[in-house]
């Protein structure tokens, strides 16, 4: 199950992290299976490139699992992982934008876009946002963090997060009259 409901049945993240730290392969795989799709999809919505998103999510998981033995179990695992994913996705999107400035051709819509993975209008609207705005939108409306949680995850003032969300929503709404209504 992708959106909730399965975590409680299979045990809490904290229990899985504890087991993983003790060396349980099953716990590591359970953490991966539980969080992969959301992490992958979040990366995709920020970078809008399925291949890059796969790389980003994969490497974020490797980084997270690598650091698992130093992870403070009192903290929740999910926002920690999502912070890694989102920051990497932002970095990737920034780097791509920079390359475009120095002459690389804009990237064509990916096969995933064309096959209905991302609504073309929504894709165009998201493309109009800067990576930080996209990240805020994804954290708020896909991953359902509160503005306060997003602020803590990204190390930003809450007012900055609210501002990014408001501006992002305004820009999306202006473009997406047809999609969102």
């Amino acid at each position: 199950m992708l959106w909730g409901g399965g975590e409680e049945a299979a045990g809490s993240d904290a229990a899985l992290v504890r087991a993983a730290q003790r060396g349980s392969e099953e716990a590591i795989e359970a953490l991966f299976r539980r969080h992969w799709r959301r992490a992958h999809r979040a990366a995709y919505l920020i970078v809008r490139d399925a291949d890059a998103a796969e790389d980003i999510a994969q490497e974020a998981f490797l980084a997270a699992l690598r650091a698992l033995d130093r992870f403070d179990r009192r903290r929740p695992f999910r926002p920690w992982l999502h912070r890694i994913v989102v920051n990497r996705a932002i970095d990737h999107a920034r780097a791509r934008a920079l390359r475009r400035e120095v002459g690389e051709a804009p990237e064509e819509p990916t096969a995933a876009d064309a096959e209905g993975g991302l609504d073309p209008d929504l894709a165009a609207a998201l493309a109009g946002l800067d990576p930080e705005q996209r990240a805020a939108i994804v954290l708020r409306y896909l991953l359902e963090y509160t503005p306060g949680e997003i602020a803590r995850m990204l190390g930003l003032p809450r007012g900055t997060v609210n501002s990014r969300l408001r501006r992002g929503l305004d820009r999306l709404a202006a473009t997406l009259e047809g999609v969102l209504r």
Partner: protein
Amino acid sequence: MNNRERLLREALRATRAGDEAGAEDRAWRVIAAAGAAEAGAAPRRRGRKRVVQVGLAVALVALAVSPAGASVGHWVVARIEPGAPHARPVLSSLPGNGSLLVNSSRGPWVVRPDGARRLLGDWTEASWSPHGLFAVVTEGHELAAVEPDGAVRWALTRPAAVGMARWNGPDGYRIAYLEGDRLRVVDGDGTDDRALARGVAWVAPAWKPGPGHVVAYATRGGAVIAAGADSGRRAFAVAGHGRVVSLQWTGGRLLVTRADRLQALDPSGRVAWTWNPPPGSAIGSATARRGRVAVVLRHGAASRLLLVAPGREAAILFAGPGRFAPARWSPDGRWLLAPWPSADQWLFLSPGTGAARPHAVANVAAQFAPGSTGAPFPSVAGWCCSR
């Protein structure tokens, strides 16, 4: 949350990131394999049984989050022996079009897409002509051009041992080869054999595609030189430190592979791109196709196959214990053949289309040395054309 926000949430939730299930499967296999690859290669913590370390694999994908040897995460993946699971026992076909050229202890083999194999003869090594109509082969002091059925079209003999012969493309009018530390060039019909340079390292020369017959070679001192094979005029000479592993022209640039870096040189010899492996690892080989470079990294007793491209983070395609041999791209660039001598396997991976797992073929050495036991693992010399 207002109505506009709810609608946006639903739209984002409905989004699919391409082949999500395939991506998940690939990611888990990479993570598990990366972890397994570190088994036994790094220190373990007391009281943790069968602990596998994934951290170095993380560093290897250019995250550079910690120096080599730093404390790494500990988590369990069962220690595995070299080899992918569910490997087919025999090579019954190749994915896609094109034929393989495989150098074995018995001699070079041509492997057709349907898996049919033909031994070219008693030669040590072979390399395809640009369109796969011929192969240039060497053995001892002899160089020859042969047809795919093994028929010899012409041959020449040199005073010293020859090897590393490469046919130019696309016209096929020249062949460069090494005789000791000399680079020589012969016309494609076996005439006008002449020396081009001395003090050359035992690295296959690389022809620049297109007119001009420019060939690049490495010197024993680590320099890389590109020169016109007909005029002898140097296009550039670039000094360098460290042994050159391989040279390959790709996209108008010369990819120079050394153990500690990849460099792409533009036609004037300027460095256009550099990629360095993470600390503690070394580049074993690199093969480029359409702007992507398949890199074999070695770290201790483990190896990883990465996909590296300018402007993108490196991605692990496969990781495992033991040694990986140089990967080869299929003619259409859709498949990678990753030989795994330590496992006596070939892995066929499809990085672009995202095949969920490698197609593995086992018992490779015996298939190219039928009737013998303990045959050495063959090397894949090329995967050419659509014939």
